[in-house]
């Protein structure tokens, strides 16, 4: 949880920084070197953000109490079959 929380903070900071970068690039008052440095940073950040966003794969787990025991069942590949009949 802690790691995730840190990731979240990083992610939000990265998004904020990215927005700043986009704005300063668009304002265009930069030297070419500065612009390229910023662009590289921006691309790196956007990749990082994408990686963070995509860091987890789709996964659906059903938890049921059966005979007093909690049973976790990964139903990712058959979500609705795992959930049973619709009411």
């Amino acid at each position, binding site marked *: 949880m802690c790691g995730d929380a840190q990731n*979240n903070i990083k992610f939000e900071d990265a*998004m904020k920084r990215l927005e700043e970068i*986009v704005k300063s*690039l668009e304002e265009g008052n930069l030297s070419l070197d500065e612009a390229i440095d910023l*662009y590289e940073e*921006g691309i790196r950040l*956007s990749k990082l953000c*994408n990686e963070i966003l995509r860091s987890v794969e789709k996964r659906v787990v059903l*938890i049921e109490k059966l005979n007093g025991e909690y049973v976790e069942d990964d139903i990712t590949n058959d979500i609705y079959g795992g959930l049973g009949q619709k*009411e």
Partner: protein
Amino acid sequence: MAKKEWSVYELTSYLRKKVEMDVLLKNIYLKGEVIRPTLSGDHLYFELKDLEYDAKVKCVYFWFDKRIEVRHGSKVLIKGSVIFYEKEGIIEIKVNEITDIGLGELFVKLKQLEEKLRQEGLFDQKHKKEIPQYPKRIGIVTSKNGAAVRDIINTIYSKFENVEVYIFNCSVQGQSAPFEICEGIEYFNKVLPVEVIIVGRGGGAFEDLMAFNDEMVVRKIFESEIPVISAVGHERDYVLTDFVADLRAITPTNAGEIVVGFQNRALEMLDEYQKRMKRAILKKIESDAENLKHKIYRLYQNSPSSKVIKLAQDVNLLSGRLAFSINKKLHSVSTILKILEKRLSDVNPYIRFTRAKNHYEMLCKRLHTAFEDFRKRKEFELQLKLEKLIALNPLNILKRGYSVTIHNSELITSVKQIKVDDEIVTRLSDGFIRSKVLGVQEGVDE
């Protein structure tokens, strides 16, 4: 015997008459709980539910007095008549009066509980935890067979794929529901940590939602370390979990939207940011390249070699102009020189002498020629005259037999010059005869 065939209208008309004729069904008093009152124009429509058994009847109150408050769940006593709608084929109560006989017992209890929990501060804003914007692990406490869980999962994965969803299956109505819901919340807090919990179910009758008004459930949500979203029924259904939860979703679908909304938006933003960055950097590079091209051009224009070329061109031009002006000068000087030479030559004594000499010689020549011509002419004239003279020589005539007579040294041309006895001399070619004139006769005839 043929059976009678009824039309639907015949049947419904018949039933209507039956109902209308029955005096027992007129001006009756009916007790029950109001279900879903809706106002349409001036008319109030609702269902009246039996207080003990599962039975309902539709009611309509025409020209309803809007000042009277008729709420869902109200226990009421109505006065009205039973009517049969032949077009719809249904029984309805046409209400004349409606009297509130106190809130539903359940409703009263619920109100009391809500008040108690509110007093305790369970619903206070200060206790609300922030819902994480980018949760990767989402817990759902609901029935695996309900529509709610499908709505939530469908919504989540249609918007954003990269999250894990943990569904804690529990009853959502009935006696054990509150316990099971609490177990689910407990499970995510103690056993399987998630970043946000959705607790909910689909819509249902008021009493179907009672598990979510349960004090134990409300307190469990309050105690949860993990943020909780309450997602129960429809927008108009309010339950106590809505008040205690950190966030109320108006429907289960809405809860799905909430948990992945930011991530979905973030993906779009990232895409947009990338596009905008690319556009901006390309624009920058293009404008710098253009600038550079311009500078190179200017540099080339100002380079030593092009300066030399330019100077050489200038030299060429200037030398051309110089040559031209020198030539022009030379030409004008030589013209002057020629004039002067001519003028000088005009006054040269030798030339003047030569010219005078030439002139003299020419004149001599002309004189000579003129003299010669004159001489020749004169010679010619002489020759002519001589020839003439020769031709006229009288001796020559005399030779041919002619003679000349002279008298006193005068040539006799007429007889009148002679008289008789005159002595005359006749000249012949070879001498003279002296004679005396014997007679003179005029005229030629003999």
